[in-house]
């Protein structure tokens, strides 16, 4: 519509639009290799933008009074070095990387969504499998009932090989379903057994120490006993019984 055209709007109401990119500027982006990582490309863009600015500024300043080209180029070169160092620092501390982090968060969200979808698929698959098993079980139960009713009608004793499952009447099925999970119970007991093992190890250590102490004490007592025995034997009379008998 005409009312939508930018040319028909008055100055203050004129819709602002972006200025077109200068061709030189777009060339800067294109000259940076896409094989580099994103943060490195951004760093290169910053440096090449500065150099481009310096190049564009130089001819304008050449005509001004007091302008020294050598000084200008020297300053531009040192500034370029500083900027390069600054860009390297930003690259190494991850500042440049943060500019791209939004997109990465989106990528991790995507992978989470993918896992959730997979889980839903598995759940659906297992549910349908479980239904199939239930149907199979019902089918076998019906067959079992048919066989038992047929057998009583025929009144013939025939040996029928029945799967153990068919022995299960409804009451037995209940009992089996409420069978405790022995594996889990054993696993729960494992912790207790671990503690018991620790305690037993401690006990064993203590008993060994006690046994060593007992041996050492016994040896010590034996030594002392032998020493005392030797001392007392030295003072013994050769025939105390006779002396005793002779004593009035």
């Amino acid at each position, binding site marked *: 519509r005409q009312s939508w055209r930018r040319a028909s709007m008055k100055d203050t109401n004129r819709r602002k639009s972006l200025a077109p990119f200068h061709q030189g500027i777009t060339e800067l982006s294109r000259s940076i290799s896409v094989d580099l990582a994103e943060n490195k490309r951004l760093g290169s863009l910053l440096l090449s933008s500065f150099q481009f600015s310096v190049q564009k500024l130089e001819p304008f300043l050449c005509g001004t009074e007091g302008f020294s080209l050598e000084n200008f180029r020297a300053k531009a070169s040192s500034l370029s070095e500083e900027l390069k160092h600054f860009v390297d620092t930003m690259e190494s501390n991850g500042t440049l990387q943060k500019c791209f982090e939004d997109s990465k968060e989106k990528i991790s969200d995507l992978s989470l969504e993918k896992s959730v979808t997979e889980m839903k698929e598995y759940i659906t698959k297992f549910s349908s499998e479980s239904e199939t098993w239930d149907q199979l079980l019902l089918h076998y139960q019906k067959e079992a009932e048919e066989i038992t009713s047929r057998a009583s009608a025929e009144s013939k004793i025939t040996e029928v090989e029945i799967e153990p499952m068919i022995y299960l009447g409804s009451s037995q099925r209940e009992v089996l379903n409420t069978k405790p999970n022995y594996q889990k119970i054993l696993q729960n007991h494992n912790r207790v057994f671990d503690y018991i093992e620790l305690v037993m190890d401690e006990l064993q250590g203590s008993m060994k120490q006690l046994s060593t102490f007992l041996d050492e004490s016994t040896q010590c007592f034996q030594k002392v006993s032998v020493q005392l025995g030797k001392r007392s034997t030295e003072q013994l009379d050769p*025939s105390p019984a*006779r002396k005793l008998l*002779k*004593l*009035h």
Partner: protein
Amino acid sequence: DDLLKLIAEVKEKRQELTSLSAKIQDLKEEYAKKKEIISTANKANEERLKRLQLSVDLFKDRLGLEIRKIYGDKLQFIFTNIDPKNPERPFMFSLCLDEEKNYQVSDSAPHLECLADFQEKLRKTKNFSAFLANVRKAFTAVVYN
């Protein structure tokens, strides 16, 4: 004269009295010293006997054997802890020296046939502990038979 004589006698008696008093004093001191010595000796003897009795009691308890000196210059050996049903039951025999100063065993209760053999072995070997060990074994065999 009579008076003079009496006076002399009295003087003499007085001197005698003094010397007797001195003697009595000496005797008292001697008595006190001896009493002190005897008391010390008594205490020492008691102490020694007490210690000896302790060791005798220990042996008696550990060996299950009591040794007594009895009338007629005999030694009596009394064993206990032989009968498991009655540990206090005593098993005994006597030992003395004959005219030739050899060991002679007698009066065993209960009677042991082999006691005479043990006596001969003791006379030859003079090994008292083996002799007593054999007697104990013999008494034990009597109980178990």
